[in-house]
C-alpha cells in the first residue's frame, strides 16, 4: 500500500440550497490499491454516488467540489487537471458504469457504435480494428452472438445485456480503475449474480481495480476486498471485508448487517435501523448517526467522533470505539 492507485483525501461536495451551501459529501477519504475491489456502502442519499461522480469530475451542476480536497490517481491530482486531460482519463484510465442500464445507452445508435466510440475517442486506430476490438470485448463480457448484437439498438436488448454492453464500454480501453455505481440494483436477482461474477472475473483477468458503490451487503460479500461504509456524507467505518462483516465496530454498520435476512434467523423478526436517513445536507450535529443510534450517550450529539484505528486495516468513527481503544 505504498502508493495506492486512487487516493481520495478530504473530498467535500456542496450544492447551493436554502441558506447557503449544503455539503452532501463531507471530508471523505478513501483509497483503492491496484487490482483490489473496494465496496462503498450506504443507504441512498448518503453521498456515495456523488463521491463516485466526483472522481470522474462529473458532478451535476450546480454542485461543486470544495477546495482543499484531493483526488490522486496514478500519482496525478485529478482535480487540478485541465478539461482535455481529464477527458483523456475518463473512459481510458477510469471506466464507469451506472445504475440504470435501461436509460444509460443512447437509444438511437447501435450498441456496437457506442462501444466503438469509447475506443475511437482514445485510440487512433482504423475502424475495422476497432470493430474487431468491440467484438472481442463483447465476447469478454459474455454477450452471446457479438456480430448480430453489434448492430442492435439498445431497446432490442434485455437489461442484463445492456449492462454487459455498458461494462464492455467501460472496459474498452482496459482502464486501471472501474467505478461501478449500483450496477446490479435495477436488475433481476438471477442476472445480478451473473453481472457480479463478470465484474469479479474481469477484475481478476485484467487487474483492473473496482470501486463498487452499493447499498447491498450481499453484493459486498461476493466481490469486495475491502469495504467503506458511508453515512450522511461521511465515511464511518473502513476495513477489510472479513473485519467488517465479522467484527463491525460502528453501530451503523452493525445495524446494516443485522437488517440483512439470514437463513438461520428464519422465523425471527428482521431487525431494522430506527428512524430515517437525514436529508442530504441537513445533517445532525456531533456524530451524525446519534439520532438513530441505540448506544448514543452524552458526547454523541455535541462532539464529532474522530477516526479511530482498531487494527492496521480497520478504522471507525465512533465515540464508543474511541473509549474502548483509549486506555
Amino acid at each position: 500500500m505504498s502508493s495506492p492507485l486512487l487516493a481520495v483525501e478530504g473530498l467535500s461536495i456542496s450544492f447551493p440550497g436554502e441558506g447557503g451551501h449544503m455539503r452532501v459529501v463531507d471530508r471523505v477519504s478513501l483509497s483503492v490499491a491496484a487490482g483490489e475491489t473496494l465496496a462503498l456502502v450506504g443507504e441512498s442519499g448518503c453521498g456515495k454516488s456523488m463521491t463516485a461522480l466526483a472522481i470522474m469530475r462529473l458532478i451535476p451542476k450546480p454542485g461543486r467540489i470544495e477546495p482543499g480536497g484531493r483526488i490522486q490517481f496514478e500519482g496525478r491530482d485529478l482535480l487540478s487537471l485541465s478539461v482535455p486531460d481529464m477527458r483523456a482519463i475518463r473512459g481510458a484510465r477510469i471506466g464507469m458504469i451506472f445504475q440504470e442500464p435501461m436509460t444509460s445507452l443512447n437509444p438511437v445508435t447501435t450498441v456496437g457504435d457506442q462501444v466503438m466510440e469509447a475506443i475511437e475517442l482514445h485510440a487512433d486506430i482504423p475502424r475495422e480494428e476497432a470493430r474487431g476490438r468491440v467484438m472481442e470485448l463483447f465476447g469478454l463480457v459474455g454477450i452471446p452472438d457479438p456480430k448480430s448484437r453489434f448492430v442492435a439498438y439498445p431497446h432490442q436488448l434485455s437489461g442484463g445485456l445492456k449492462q454487459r454492453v455498458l461494462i464492455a464500454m467501460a472496459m474498452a480501453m482496459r482502464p486501471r480503475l472501474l467505478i461501478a455505481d449500483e450496477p446490479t440494483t435495477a436488475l433481476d436477482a438471477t442476472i445480478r449474480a451473473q453481472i457480479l461474477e463478470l465484474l469479479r472475473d474481469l477484475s481478476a483477468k485484467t487487474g483492473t481495480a473496482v470501486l463498487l458503490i452499493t447499498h447491498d451487503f450481499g453484493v459486498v460479500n461476493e466481490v469486495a476486498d475491502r469495504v467503506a461504509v458511508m453515512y450522511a456524507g461521511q465515511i464511518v467505518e473502513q476495513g477489510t471485508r472479513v473485519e467488517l462483516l465479522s467484527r463491525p465496530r460502528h453501530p451503523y454498520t452493525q445495524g446494516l448487517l443485522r437488517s440483512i435476512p439470514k437463513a438461520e434467523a428464519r422465523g425471527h423478526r428482521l431487525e431494522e435501523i430506527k428512524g430515517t436517513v437525514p436529508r442530504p445536507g441537513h445533517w445532525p450535529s456531533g456524530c451524525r448517526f446519534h439520532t438513530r443510534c441505540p448506544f448514543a450517550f452524552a458526547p454523541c450529539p455535541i462532539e464529532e467522533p474522530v477516526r479511530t484505528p482498531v487494527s492496521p486495516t480497520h478504522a471507525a468513527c465512533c465515540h464508543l470505539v474511541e473509549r474502548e481503544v483509549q486506555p
Partner: protein
Amino acid sequence: MHWVSNIIVLLLILGAIYAGRYAARDRFWRENAIELWRRRPVAIGVIAVYLFIALLDSISWVDPASEANALTSGRARTIIDRIFRPETFKEASYSAPLASVAFYGGQPLLHPGAHALGTDLLGRDVVYRTLKGMRVALLIGGLTSLVVIPIALLFGVTAGYFGRRIDDAVFFAMTVLASVPSLLLLIALIMVLGKGTVQVCVALGVTGWVHFCRIARGETLKLREADFVAAARALGVRDGTIIRRHILPNIAHLVIITFALSFTALVLSETILSYLGIGLDGSWGQMIDQARNELSRTPIIWWNLAGASVALFTLVLSVNVIADAMRDIIDPRTRREGR
C-alpha cells in the same frame, strides 16, 4: 347591461377571495405563492396594477337624473370614465403628447399640456384609451379562459378517468377541432357568429378548450395509474370523490400554467383579429391597427401606437414571466449533468 358586468365583477372578486383562502390553507399553494412573489415581485405588481385598473373600469353606475348633465345622462359610466371625463376631456383631432396646440393647424387646445400621450384622430385622450384597453385585454384572455377551463376540465378529466367510449368521443372531438388551424377556425367562428365581445370570447373559447382538454386528459390518464389513486380505488372510494380529492388538486398547477400561457396567446391573437376587422371595440389591437398609417405621416404620429403597444407588451411580458417562474417553481426538473 351595466349591472351584468357589475355582477360578474362581484362574482370574480368573491371567487378570487375563495381561491385565495383555499390556497392559503394548502401548504403546496402557499409555499409556491410565496416563492413566486419572492422571485417575481415586479411582474406580479404589474399584473396587480392592470387588474386594479380593469376593475375600476368594470364597475359602473348611472347617475341619478338630478346629478347628470346633458352629456352623461342615462349612461352608465365606470370609475375610469368618471376620473377622465372623456365627454369633455378631448380635442378636435390629433395633438402631440403634452402639446398646447393642435397637431394640424396649430389652434390652441382645450386642455393644453394635459394629454400626457396626446390625442388620436378623433381627439380622444390616448392615456384614457390605453387604460380602457386593459379591461378589454383582461376580458379577452381572462374571461375566455375562465369559461373554457371548467368545460375543458369536465371533458378532459372524465375522458381520462373513465376511458373507453367517453375517451374515444372526447378524443375524436379534440382531434377534429385541433385539425383546423386555430386562427382560421377562430376567424370562421367570428364570421359565422358575428362581431361582438361575447361572440369573440365564445369563438376564442371554442378554439382554446382543446388545448386545456388535452392537458387535463393526459394528466388524468397518468394519475389514474398512480399508486395513490389505485389505493383509493382499492379502498372503495367513489369515483367522484377520487376525482375531486386526488385528480383535480394534482392537475391544478398545470391548469394554472396553461391558463397563463393561453392568456398571452389570446391577447396577442386579438391584435390579428383587429387587423382583420373582427376584433373587440376599444382593444389595443384596434389602436395599433388604427395607428398603422400614422407612421407614414410627416412628422410621424407615434403616441397612439406607443401607448397601446407598450401597454400590451408589458402585460404579455409580465404574464409570460410569471408563467415561466411558476413552471420553474412547480416543475424544477433539476438538470443533472457535469462538465
